[in-house]
Every structure is written in C-alpha cells, then in structure tokens.
C-alpha cells in the first residue's frame, strides 16, 4: 500500500489524547448555527406574530393597535354576528360563504380531478398535450383568474351576451351580479384554477399503482368500473388526503380571487373570512375584530393541518 501514494501528507499524532478544542466545538455547533436564523425567524415572525394577533384580538384596537386588554369583546361581537341573519351581518355572510365555497370547491375539485385523471389514464393519444391544458390555470395568479372570469361571466359582455348573439336570447346568467349567487361564481373560478392540479395529483397516484395488482384483479374478473371502485380508488386514499389538505388550506386562504372576481360582490355578499379580516382591519378600523377573525381562521386551519402534520412527521421506526 505504501507504494501507492508516497506523496501523501501524513497527519502525525502530536498528542495521544487530544482535547476537544474550541474550534472543533464550534464545528459541532455549526449545523445548528446555520439553521438558527431560519428557525428564529419562524419563531418570531410566525409564532410570535400569531400571539401578537391573539393579543390584539383581546384589546380595543380600532384604527391603530391598542394594547389595553378589554376582554373578549371582539369575539362576543363576532359571536353575535354569527346569528345576525336579518339583515345578515358581514361576518355571517363570510362564514356561510366559507361553508358553501369550501364544501363545493373541495368536493368539485376532488371529483373532477379524479374523473379527469381516470379519463386521462385510459391510454389517451395526446395526453401530453391535454395535461398541460388542464393544469396551466394553477400557474396564474388569482388576480388574473379573477379578471378573466369576471369578463367571461359578465352578463353584458361575456357568456350571456355571446349566447344571445347566437340566438339563445332567453339565456340568463347574471350570478356575478346577484348577491345570492355571486359566491358560486367564486366556486367556478376556483375550481377552474385548482382542479387541473388535483387531476395531476390523482394521475400521479394512478401511475404509481402496482400494475400487477391490476392484472390480478382483471384475472379475478373485475370489470373496469369495479376495478376502479373496489381497487383503484381505495388505493388512492393517501392522495385524497393530500389533495384535501391542499384544497382546504387554499380555500381558507382565498382572498385575492374574491377581490379580483367580484370586488367583494354586491354589498360584500361574496366575502370570505379572509376578506372580512382585511376589510375590518384595514378599511373599517376595527382592528380587534379583524384580529379575532384571523384567530378564528387560524384555529380552523390548525384543526385540519396539525393532525395531518403530526401523522406525517411522527418518527417512523427505523
């Protein structure tokens, strides 16, 4: 061996029992030092700020933050508004809209995404061209999506007018101007944007299924429909979960879309809690109420995300 590399610099041992030097201790701490700034930033600007927001929600902050604790007044008001239906309070509108939007958006995206993924998985010629067409809306901002759909759904300019020109003069579609239906236009635009991505998730899941399971099921005499219902869809369970998480958190964060598509809708009828928070905090000078609504949004997310993250990150036995 010594013939191989006589040019080596040998590290001759100076001491038989070297002390752990300051430098090597620094070396040991280096990884943590590198991670520390990011972690500190997260602690301060995420968790610290959340606490700050919680604090503000218990104060009498109006236009400017006040640090005088006045108790749960903001929450009490939100609670009262929750049942204010005549006329509906903005908060009532926001949370019912959240319910409608959240349910339909998640449900339709999942159903449509799965449906399209299954269709695309049938050895489709031109799959490579179709996939990007379904998916591109995800690359657009909610603002652009909102602008595009606002135009498309405008009764005087968009779909309605086009169909009138084509001779279907009885066609009537003015949801975007109708306070009872405007939230459904947000659903349409939201689904348009996200369903392609959900499709891609399901498609990846379908492609990941072991082909031999399929063959076995076919030999067992399963029809295509049975194959999907009994074998494939149950195997896609983890994808459903991931997709649900993605959609739920997109839904609760949705703010831009409502602004760009409806500008809040007639009389704020398209508001979601995120819009409520923004409006009350920055426009209506009700900072405490805005903070309280933000806390409620956060709690909703926590209830969904924390169990999910916990199960994902639990130390797996090695």
């Amino acid at each position, binding site marked *: 061996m010594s013939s191989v590399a006589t040019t080596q610099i040998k590290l001759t041992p100076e001491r038989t029992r070297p002390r752990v030097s300051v430098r090597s201790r620094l070396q040991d701490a280096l990884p943590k030092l*590198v991670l520390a700034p990011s972690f500190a930033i997260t602690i301060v600007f995420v968790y610290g700020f959340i606490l700050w927001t919680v604090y503000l929600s218990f104060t009498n902050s109006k236009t400017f933050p006040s640090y005088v604790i006045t108790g749960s007044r903001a929450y009490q008001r939100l609670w009262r508004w929750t049942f204010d239906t005549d006329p509906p309070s903005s908060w009532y509108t926001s949370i019912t809209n959240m319910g409608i939007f959240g349910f339909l958006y998640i449900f339709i995206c999942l159903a449509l995404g799965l449906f399209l993924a299954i269709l695309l998985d049938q050895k489709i010629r031109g799959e490579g061209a179709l996939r990007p067409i379904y998916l591109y809306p995800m690359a657009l901002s909610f603002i652009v999506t909102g602008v595009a759909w606002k135009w498309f759904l405008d009764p005087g300019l968009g779909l309605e007018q086009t169909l009138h020109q084509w001779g279907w003069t009885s066609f009537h579609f003015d949801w975007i101007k109708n306070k009872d239906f405007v939230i459904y236009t947000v659903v349409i635009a939201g689904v348009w944007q996200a369903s392609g991505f959900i499709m891609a998730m399901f498609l990846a899941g379908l492609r990941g299924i072991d082909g031999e399971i399929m063959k076995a099921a076919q030999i067992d005499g399963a029809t295509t429909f049975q194959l999907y219902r009994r074998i494939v869809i149950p195997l896609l369970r983890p994808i459903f979960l991931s997709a649900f998480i993605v959609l739920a958190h997109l839904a609760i964060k949705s703010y*831009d879309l409502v602004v760009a598509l409806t500008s809040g809708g007639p009389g704020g009828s398209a508001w979601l809690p995120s819009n409520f928070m923004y409006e009350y905090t920055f426009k209506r000078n009700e900072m405490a109420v805005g903070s309280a609504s933000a806390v409620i949004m956060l709690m909703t997310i926590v209830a969904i995300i924390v169990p999910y993250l916990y199960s994902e990150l639990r130390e797996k036995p090695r």
Partner: protein
Amino acid sequence: MSAVATSTRQAPGGMNVKLANRIVIYGLLALFAVFYLMPLFVMLVTSFKTMDEIQNGNMLALPRAPTFEPWLKAWGETCVGLTCAGIKGYFWNSIKMVVPAVLISTMLGALNGYVLTKWRFRGATLVFGLMLFACFIPFQSVLLPMATILGSLGRFGVTLQNTFGTSFGLGNPTVNLVFVHVVYGIGFTTLFFRNYYEAFPTELVKAAQVDGASFFQIFRRIMLPNSLPIIVVTVIYQFTNIWNDFLFASAYAGTGDAMPMTVALNNVVNTSTGVVEYNVNMAAAMIAALPTLLVYVLAGRYFVRGLMAGAVKG
C-alpha cells in the same frame, strides 16, 4: 395501470362498444379542454381587439383586425390609480421583488434541508414541524403585526436617512416585500430541500467527511452540485408564488409607485374613472400572467413536481 382499459372484456359486438367508449372519453376530454382554455382564449383575443369590436362583436370571435394597441397602452399609458404611465413600472417592481426573494429563500431552504437531514440533532423533527406548519397558516394571522413592524422599521429608516443619508433599505416597500416573502417562504423551501436530501445518500456525506471536507465544503462541493432538480423546482415554485401574491402586496405596498404587478393589475381593472377599456385590461392581465405562464410552458414538469412536493411530504 394504463394497460387496464385496453383489455376490457371483449363481449360480442365488443368492438363497437369499445369504439363508443373511446368516442365518449375523447369527447369529454375535449370538452374539458375547452373549459380550461376558454378564459385564456377570451382574454387573448380580447386583448387584440379594438373597443369598437368588443362592444359590437362576439366575445369568442377572433379579432377582425388584430391590433397591438391595447398591449402598448397597457404597458406604457394606462392609468393605475391616478398615475397614467402604464404597468411597466409595476412589472419591474415585481421583478425587483421576486428575484432576491426567490434567491434568498431558496438558498436558506437548501442550507436548512442539508442540516435537517445530514446533521440531525435531537429535536430536529420538531424544528422542522414548526417551520413546516408556517407554510399553512392563513397569512391574515400575521398580517397586522408585520404591518406594525414594517411601519416602525420605515420610521427608523427615515431617521437613518436624515442622520446618515441612507435608510439601508428600511421602509422601502420592495425591500419589505422581499423580507416578508423570504420569511414566509422558507417553510416551503426547507420542506422541498429536506425531502430531497432525505433521499440523498448519507454515505456521500460520510465519505466526504472521511475525505476531510468541512460542513460548508460538503454543502458546496457535494450537495449543491447534485441538487439541480430540486433547485429548479424550488425556484419555480417560489417564483410563481411570490409573483402571484396579492395579499402581502396589497397590505404592504398597496399604494404608490412601489406596487407589484398584481396590485397594479387589480387597480387597472377596478378603476372607475372614464370608459372601461376591456382590451387594455385584458392585455394588462396577460402581461401579468406571462412570466408565470412562460415558466410553466418551459418547465411544466418541474412546476408540477413542486406543487406535489408542497402537498405530499415524506
């Protein structure tokens, strides 16, 4: 998986059933393609039409005499609020905000992922969990404190400006937005790199340690050169997210010359003064959409991978 459909049972007359099936499948797929393409198509054709043609013509008709006028006007003349100098300035605002924010958050994410996978320490999972959760919070819950802090920093910047002649970027809305996007982006970038490095062979790091490479040498010489795919994914994901952001942009740079593109576009479209120029609006929307669309067209594969990585962790 794809083999499934082809071997559906061949009943008598199976060929016809099969053909009918295929027609239905292709028909549905085409229908949905129309659904997804329609808004983009309408935006695009409208942006090349004259106002006259828009008011009297069909939304779906191709422009009779395509004109670049709306694009030029959107870029250089249209009114955003009270300033009528087009959206070009805001476009550059967005660029100036996106580039540093993406670079910084990606770099931090790479370092964090490296530490969290290759230099594991007690509590690493908890640290990661806390950073990861930050990806999911509704930003409304931090919006106000951040506004307060940025306001204070801005005032401090003014003091610095008066004392030293430079504010060191404090109070500059673009700098503020870069900071905000880095802070709330490192959760995602860390997630991407952690998951990638988790699968990265630890033996390479051990071999490099035996070879005498230091913490940073291993990162620079071994990890980074082998991270190109995840770097591309992260950069694209961050670019798209930050470019498309509206909430932070409107909260911290919602007025004045520093507005990013999304806010400016919203102002253009919702402006109530004068005649609404739909063709200019659509052109402006197209300009706002182009960078991310371009990235999507050029690197769609990585775009999808990024979205998936953000959704499914390991």
